[in-house]
């Protein structure tokens, strides 16, 4: 890889990193505004115009609170827990394709942190590691309620990871690849833009969505951190910014889960009529192929973020609408409903592929990946 391309790619990685943090920051604000809207209240409006500086005020509050170490706690691991939660949350956005590519002369810049051919497995591996942040934090607190909370959270995450993986297998059977970029491109074969995976995999999407709620510890599955019926959970003993990091990691996870769902089921950076638009730019407006492609790529990235924001809104909408499950209900839903349903979905997809209802992927299209024909 040329050094110049490497420099561009580094810039993209920095932008992805910054955007993940920025979006997670404003998720805390959006959560309150949406809660206020749904409950017919005003919401935060004191700090800055429309309360936009509220996340900053929260951060100052978190940082200046007293930092407390419980007696007999394992200090190194007590600090390591929230760090690990944060690191694993931030790592998973590295492989998400936020857009197609930009081309300046001979330089091609992928709007993606890094493209690897096992992208989906990478996301899964990192999500699986997220459990450690919770478990280490809960254990190092030297509090039996923290430990029980950590076990509760970890077993919930592990249980729902299974159903999530099984729902994903149906998508992988259709696409025949683990690369998130290729999965995105497959949903945009020219002339068939409406074939987003949601059309082919409605059942798989619903299973994945439910599991994503459980994996990110959002209501109605927020038992790991419910302080009203059960003791707080793994972060009972945490205070100050270490608690803030745990809560912040949850919002990054919501962002990443939204992005993954958009890629897998809602066409990622594709948007309707992109080929018609690029052709119009190319023929009627006399733009070069590269310029038309760049415009389509940028519009696609914007569209991708709109999809992500729609999912984030959905996460918050559900939080302020549904009550939370009881723990045995949660386990029963995961093990006796979602997993058999996901296996049924795999069989169904296999049957549809075998009978030819789901068409084969057009390989010639994948090789170029250009929006302009």
């Amino acid at each position: 890889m040329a050094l110049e391309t490497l420099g561009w790619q580094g810039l993209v990685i920095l932008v992805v990193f910054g955007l993940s943090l920025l979006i997670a920051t404003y998720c805390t604000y959006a959560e309150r505004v949406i809660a206020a809207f749904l409950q017919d209240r005003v919401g935060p409006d004191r700090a800055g115009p429309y309360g936009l500086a509220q996340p900053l005020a929260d951060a100052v509050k978190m940082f200046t609170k007293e930092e407390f170490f419980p007696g007999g706690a394992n200090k190194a691991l007590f600090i390591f827990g929230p760090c690990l939660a944060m690191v694993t949350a931030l790592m998973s956005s590295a492989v998400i394709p936020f857009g197609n590519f930009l081309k300046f002369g001979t330089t091609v810049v992928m709007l993606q942190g890094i493209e690897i051919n096992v992208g989906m497995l990478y996301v899964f591996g990192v999500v699986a590691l997220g459990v450690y942040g919770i478990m280490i934090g809960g254990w190092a607190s030297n509090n039996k309620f923290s430990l029980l909370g950590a076990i509760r959270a970890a077993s919930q995450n592990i249980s729902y990871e299974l159903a999530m993986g099984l729902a994903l297998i149906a998508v992988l059977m259709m696409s025949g690849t683990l690369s998130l970029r290729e999965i995105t491109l497959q949903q945009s074969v020219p002339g068939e833009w409406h074939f987003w995976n949601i059309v082919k995999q409605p059942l798989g999407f619903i299973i994945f969505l439910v599991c994503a709620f459980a994996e990110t510890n959002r209501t109605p599955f927020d038992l790991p951190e419910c302080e009203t019926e059960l003791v707080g959970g793994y972060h009972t003993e945490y205070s100050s910014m270490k608690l803030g990091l745990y809560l912040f990691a949850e919002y990054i996870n919501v962002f990443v889960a939204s992005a993954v769902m958009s890629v897998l089921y809602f066409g990622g950076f594709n948007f309707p009529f992109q080929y018609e638009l690029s052709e119009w730019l190319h023929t009627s407006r006399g733009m070069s192929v590269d310029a038309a492609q760049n415009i389509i790529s940028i519009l696609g990235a914007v569209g991708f973020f709109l999809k992500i924001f729609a999912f984030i809104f959905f996460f918050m909408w559900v939080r302020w609408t549904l009550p939370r499950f009881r723990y045995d209900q949660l386990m029963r839903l995961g093990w006796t409903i979602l997993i058999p349903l996901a296996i049924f979905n795999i069989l169904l997809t296999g049957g549809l592929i075998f009978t030819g209802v789901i068409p084969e992927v057009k390989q010639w299209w994948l090789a170029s990946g250009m929006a302009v024909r």
Partner: protein
Amino acid sequence: MSLFLFLCFVALLSALGVVLAKNPVHSVLFLILTFFTLSAHYLLLNAQFLAAVNIIVYAGAIMVLFLFVIMFLNLNEDTEPHKPALAQISAAIAGGLLLLVMVAALHNVQPAGYNADTFDSQVGMVNRLGLVLFKEYSLPFELASILLLTALVGSVMLGKRETGERNF
């Protein structure tokens, strides 16, 4: 090469940490770090699928269960049974002999080497691996799946509540 040496250094250090750490939870965390360095070695060998699966299965699933059990057992120096000196000496001798055998067996092994012209650098990629597994090794692959299925059925059988039995 320097990356390889660095990874080897971290791998050996964390593997020593597993054995030498006083606290069993620290041992488990060192073991997870060891799995990570192994995955990094797989990545250096261009085996991305193996690296990702190693993380998901070992670091992500099996070690979580290890951590569960060890956290609940609450092991520490007070509860550790004191082993007699004879057992310690015999364990040291047996371990030393094993090391001797391994060093003797491996000390003048030549690496098989590969032909740079015919070597296929894509051999570890997921689609190639899938083709090999399902074409050339499909019988061993299916047998391994049946073995896993048997273990699964067995664990469900053991965990099942029998009629009239109450656990709480």
